[in-house]
């Protein structure tokens, strides 16, 4: 049934157990050598012995590619000729405009919908006895891959022309109430929103968890005091809870922004970018494999990177503040 080459289990053991043991042994040898150095030199050298391998990994997989991509983004399709900003001009013209526009739609809708739903869930789950169960259920999809989520929701969005039995859940419900079926994945704008909702469904749990933890951290005394002062539930939420959970709100917004930027799996699986749903990451895949245009691919990758920079900056600032 399964055709797995015989060397695979061996390789897995080497990777999962052998490499750590080897590295540990290498550290041991390194420490032996360090022990013979003068105390000061030993202290100076030790961090690099320990950090060496993790750093090399990060440099090879992240730092080196980032720098190189900046270079190839101003080169031609095969990275042989210098083309200046041509690739960037291409990235903001013609069909690319629609694609960038879709990403902007994601960037606006996905964070806002997630934030609102997650706030509602975090607040309301706290008010019912089965709140923990609800939280567990909302967390379940966070274990599911974007790919599997896309498959699951493709079924739910499934569309048959009017008159045929609707086997997709959404259109069956519409039919039940006497409405015409909607081609969820084909009709422009609706299809983008349908894709965005899949991402909401998959990651609402994470956002709810983060906000819920933050809300629980807001002092009960403060809420009680406001209640004694005669504040209504909504007023308490708006003027006591919300201002106190802004850092958590920021985390939810930044994580969803990043997801919107790099979203690939859902679009690739559900529409493959057809019907006006294409996004930058999916186009990048197309440029890499179908068009083999490394210049275009690099340029739109750099655009993604720069779009992510503000978030990186926010994180760095937050981190420095917390470290103090």
């Amino acid at each position, binding site marked *: 049934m*399964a055709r797995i080459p015989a060397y695979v289990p061996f390789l897995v053991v080497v990777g999962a157990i052998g490499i750590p043991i080897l590295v540990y042994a290498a550290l041991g040898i390194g420490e032996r050598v360090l022990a013979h150095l003068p105390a000061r030199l030993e202290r100076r050298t030790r961090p690099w012995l320990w950090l060496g391998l993790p750093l090399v990994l990060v440099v090879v997989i992240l730092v080196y590619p980032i720098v190189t*991509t900046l270079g190839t983004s101003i080169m031609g399709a095969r990275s042989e000729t210098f083309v200046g900003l041509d690739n960037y001009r291409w990235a903001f013209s013609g069909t690319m405009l629609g694609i960038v526009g879709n990403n902007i739609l994601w960037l606006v809708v996905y964070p806002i919908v997630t934030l609102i739903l997650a706030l509602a869930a975090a607040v309301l789950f706290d008010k019912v006895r089965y709140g923990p169960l609800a939280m567990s259920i909302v967390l379940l999809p966070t274990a599911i891959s974007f790919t599997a989520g896309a498959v699951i929701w493709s079924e739910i969005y499934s569309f048959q022309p009017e008159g045929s039995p609707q086997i997709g859940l959404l259109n069956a419900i519409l039919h039940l109430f006497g409405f015409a079926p909607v081609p969820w994945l084909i009709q422009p704008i609706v299809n983008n929103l349908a894709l965005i909702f899949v991402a909401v469904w998959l990651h609402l749990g994470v956002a709810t968890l983060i906000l819920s933890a933050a809300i629980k951290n807001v002092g009960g005394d403060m809420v009680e005091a406001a209640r004694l002062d005669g504040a209504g539930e909504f007023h308490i939420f708006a003027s006591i809870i919300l201002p106190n959970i802004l850092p958590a709100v920021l985390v939810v917004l930044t994580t969803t922004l990043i997801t919107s930027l790099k979203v690939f799996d859902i679009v690739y699986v559900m529409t493959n970018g057809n019907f006006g749903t294409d996004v930058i990451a999916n186009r990048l895949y197309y440029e890499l494999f179908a068009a083999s245009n490394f210049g275009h691919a690099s340029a739109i990758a750099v655009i993604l990177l720069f779009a992510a920079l503000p978030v990186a900056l926010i994180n760095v600032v937050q981190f420095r503040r917390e470290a103090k």
Partner: protein
Amino acid sequence: MSARAPKRRGSTGRWARIGVHVVVVAIIVVWFVPTIGLFVSSLRPQAEAASSGWWMAFVRPIYTAQNYELALDQLQTASSLATSLAIAVPTTALVMFFSVLGSYALVRMRFAGRTALSLILVALLVTPPQITLVPLLRLYYMAGLSGTLPGIWLYQTGFTVPFGVFLLRGFIASIPEELYESAHLDGASELRIFRSIVLPLARPILASLGILAFLWSWNDLLIPLLFLGGSPLAPAITVNLSGLAAQTAQGRGPLMAATFLSVVVPLILVISMQRHFVRGILGGAVKG
């Protein structure tokens, strides 16, 4: 605590409470039903599935295991699951190992550039993977890593280690300095302290990191899609599913079965280790 604030008995209060239940139940339904639908669909015969929605299985209960047989037999699902395991297990182990190594050194040892290094790692947390693809495809091709398992481990480990270091550093910093000093005076070397003090104490947070690393690796589509092409191995389960989704020749039943098999592993993991999972998400609440 019996001293409860008196509840408002007015009709607005009651309607508000009903409203709360309606919203919460609606969220539960929307978040639970799709997974149920997937499972039920995977058990329905092709003829049934082609003519009616999965909910009709509750009206006309006709079930079959045939979809699973087809999925395992013809769709390479078993081999794909094996490939995904062969990707995710070593990746998880390596992420945990290198992250704890890196965060221990970063937190415990003093050296020039330590703060700068921490900040760079934080900035790298949100790097879109796309930025790495062009150079790494070339590098992998030249280094012979294309289409190999170690190539995928390398990528996913390198990509996740900044997060791992970030998640662990807070925990390792919370181990009191005196514990390390005490171990030093007891005659323990740096390596011994790492093994006998840091690793055992970090076990819970390492479990959290492990779950997240496993989920990300298992659920990743882009990297195995790009870097595992041309290998003798079956495609990773996500890659396999994305291919199946595009074609409808086999009917949807086997696809549902394969999809369900692909989500069972992470679902069991998250359900059985929910506490660690939650701690991981809350501890690392910054990554995109």
